[in-house]
């Protein structure tokens, strides 16, 4: 895919990626594995839509269907959307703030591998006695009663990948707090960096409740604890609270980086400064803040009582205000601009009406008494696919086109990109618009089949056709990726021509040490400022050229995660009695993990230096990958 791949042998490339601590390569790892999980999740979505295409279909059995929706939701949220967004954060954010790398390169790699092995572990459940089947929300009474190991796969897998995500979040926060280039004040940070910052803060504070809940789940199922065991005094509502205290911020973890990507796109392709930058920043922070105070809107029908319902209803509605501020500022950004409809911009433009449609149904659901009707019906399914697919997935597709040149040094085809867009966009509205009405017509969600006597046949069939369109769009994208990589036409620093922020002032892909000299930032949209001042380089420097200190690559993160992965299998089976090997596996796995952690802390790893001479050599040869 990149020039490195062609120069090195296949094995060496793999090893390179397994040991890398370079944020740009880790970004590629996130993108590829997130992409594969997206395809798996999408395939599961297709199976759902096939099953529901007609009344009384028996394509999937009841049990299998529940496994599929559970894995679809879990995979898409935890293993596809979030990691792909982490890929962009990794690839772009350090460049945007003019940093040499993230704050903790080693932990960055560890975070990825934990996510990766957690995801693999979760998906292996398909082949090892059944996937989780209690919905992605995994409500406790059903989860405790679920037979087989599916739920244990869910709890352990998400715990591992959750740790990975938490590490990534801390890493980005520290990077943004400490590693900004001179002059890059908080109020000069590009919006994508800002949204990365707030989303990471949400990760930091939202994942612990999930982890605790998952621990309870593991203890209840494996060690006979009684957190949720009603007859022993336990309470299943505790799970619901812990899950949603995490779950609602989680949806903003997804949408905020998406907002960030679109903010960049609107500015670049309208050739105009973001309208109301300050308002956009504060709206982002406000959304993050309110995001923690509304979780019970998922629990209106639980019976929390009218006071709680009313409070949470009002709190939820308030979020429409900062979100609206963002929408209108984007509209005013393109207003009076000079809009080029390149593929990323098409997505951004399509995002606005789609997301607003999804957002306003969210506000309708926030009306608690109305939600008694809407809750757990297809109206909800329509709402969240409108915000997620119409917001997050469109952002992912847009970001893929926008940042592909920066990550791989070559441009995806605009023509195929437009084909993908139209198929995906039309398919998306076809699939989900009609689901609002299915919900209002009384169709509950999570039903594996429905009777022909309820009047839902036609709309379901239409919805399934839409999904097919989306699949075609995705397949065209895959073709696009393959063709682009084969052609491999190299591009310069600023392939879109109107880049405004620091990542467009560096080679595509950037050298492994990023900026040879740390840039000096003179204002918001620093590259644009330099361009307007006639500075062809796009930046001025804050320091003379000198030696650069770089961290060494390391296989240890991979091994630590592998150990956790192995140990999880032991944990899964060691209480079964008939599997004496399981305890050994558990111990070996933990041994690998702790052993390699020990090794890491005992062996000083001080990195290496790139000398000034080498940098000069690099600059002359235009060699970008440093080898």
């Amino acid at each position, binding site marked *: 895919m990149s020039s490195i791949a062609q120069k090195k042998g296949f094995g060496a490339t793999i090893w390179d990626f397994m040991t890398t601590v370079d944020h740009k390569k880790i970004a590629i790892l996130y993108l590829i594995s997130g992409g594969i999980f997206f395809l798996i999740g999408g395939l599961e979505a297709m199976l759902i839509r096939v099953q529901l295409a007609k009344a009384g279909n028996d394509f999937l059995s009841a049990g299998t269907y529940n496994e599929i929706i559970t894995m679809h939701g879990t995979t898409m949220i935890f293993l596809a959307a979030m990691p792909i967004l982490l890929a962009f954060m990794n690839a772009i954010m350090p460049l945007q703030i003019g940093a040499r790398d993230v704050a903790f390169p080693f932990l960055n790699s560890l975070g990825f591998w934990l996510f990766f092995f957690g995801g693999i572990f979760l998906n292996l459940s398909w082949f090892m006695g059944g996937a989780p089947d209690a919905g992605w929300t995994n409500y406790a009474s059903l989860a405790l009663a679920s037979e087989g190991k599916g739920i244990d796969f869910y709890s352990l897998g998400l715990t591992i990948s959750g740790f990975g995500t938490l590490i990534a979040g801390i890493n980005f926060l520290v990077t943004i707090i400490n590693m900004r280039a001179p002059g890059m004040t908080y109020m000069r940070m590009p919006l994508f960096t800002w949204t990365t910052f707030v989303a990471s*803060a949400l990760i930091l*504070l*939202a994942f612990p*409740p999930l982890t605790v809940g998952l621990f309870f789940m593991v203890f209840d199922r494996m060690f006979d604890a009684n957190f949720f065991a009603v007859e022993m005094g336990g*309470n299943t509502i*505790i799970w619901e609270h812990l899950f949603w*205290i995490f779950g609602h911020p989680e949806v903003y973890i997804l949408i905020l980086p998406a907002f960030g990507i679109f903010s960049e796109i609107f500015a670049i392709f309208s050739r105009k400064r973001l309208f109301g930058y300050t308002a956009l920043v504060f709206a982002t922070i406000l959304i993050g803040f309110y995001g923690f*105070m509304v979780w019970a809107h998922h629990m209106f029908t639980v019976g*929390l*009582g009218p006071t709680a319902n009313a409070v949470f209803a009002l709190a939820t509605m308030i979020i429409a205000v900062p979100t609206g501020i963002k929408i209108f500022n984007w509209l005013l950004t393109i207003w009076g601009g000079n809009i080029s409809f390149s593929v990323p911009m098409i997505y951004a433009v399509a995002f606005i009406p789609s997301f607003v449609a999804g957002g306003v149904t969210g506000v309708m659901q926030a009306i608690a008494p109305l939600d008694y009707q809407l809750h757990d019906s297809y109206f909800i399914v329509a709402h969240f696919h409108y915000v997620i697919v119409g917001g997050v997935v469109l952002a992912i597709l847009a970001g893929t086109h926008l940042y592909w040149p920066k990550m791989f040094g070559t441009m995806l085809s605009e023509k195929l990109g437009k084909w993908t867009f139209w198929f995906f966009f039309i398919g998306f509205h076809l699939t989900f618009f009609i689901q609002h009405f299915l919900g209002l017509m009384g169709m509950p969600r999570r039903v594996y089949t429905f009777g022909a006597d309820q009047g839902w046949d036609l709309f379901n069939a239409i919805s399934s056709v839409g999904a097919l369109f989306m699949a075609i769009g995705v397949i065209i994208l895959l073709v696009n990726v393959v063709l682009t990589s084969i052609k491999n036409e190299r591009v310069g620093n600023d392939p879109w021509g109107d880049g405004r922020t620091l990542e467009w002032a560096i080679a595509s892909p950037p050298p492994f040490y990023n900026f040879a000299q740390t840039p000096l930032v003179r204002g918001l949209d620093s590259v644009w400022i330099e361009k307007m001042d006639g500075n062809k380089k796009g930046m001025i420097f804050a320091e003379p050229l000198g030696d650069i200190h770089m961290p060494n690559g390391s296989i240890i993160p991979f091994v630590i995660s592998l150990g956790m992965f192995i140990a999880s299998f032991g944990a899964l089976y060691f209480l079964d009695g008939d599997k004496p090997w399981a305890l050994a596996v558990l111990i070996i796995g933990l041994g690998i993990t702790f052993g390699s952690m020990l090794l890491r802390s005992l062996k000083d790893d001080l990195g290496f230096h790139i000398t000034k001479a080498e940098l000069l050599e690099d600059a002359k040869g235009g060699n970008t990958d440093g080898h």
Partner: protein
Amino acid sequence: MAHDTHIHVRSQAEFEYTKKKRAEEMRGHLATFAIMIFLTLIAFTMVTAGFSAYLIVPIVLLLAAIQVVLQLYYFMHMSGKGHGMVAFFMFCGMFVAFITILALVTIVWW
């Protein structure tokens, strides 16, 4: 990152001054510790003395809160220089912690 540690050797006067400052600070810490022990004593005595629960609960919670403030601000230097972001995130964490606890004590059992 290559140039971030230049070694600065302090003059004797400077050195003596910081040393004295530290020693003073340490005495402050000792006082803090004494207060914490004292607060703990009050809390335990109140409970063993068996006052009404309505009186005890708010007071022991208050005492705990004071102790935590002491730990954070004196032992952990949260008010010190360069702790702005630290304090911000700790407060966010406490905020989330607070609403979590509030929710689970109020709307789990109806």
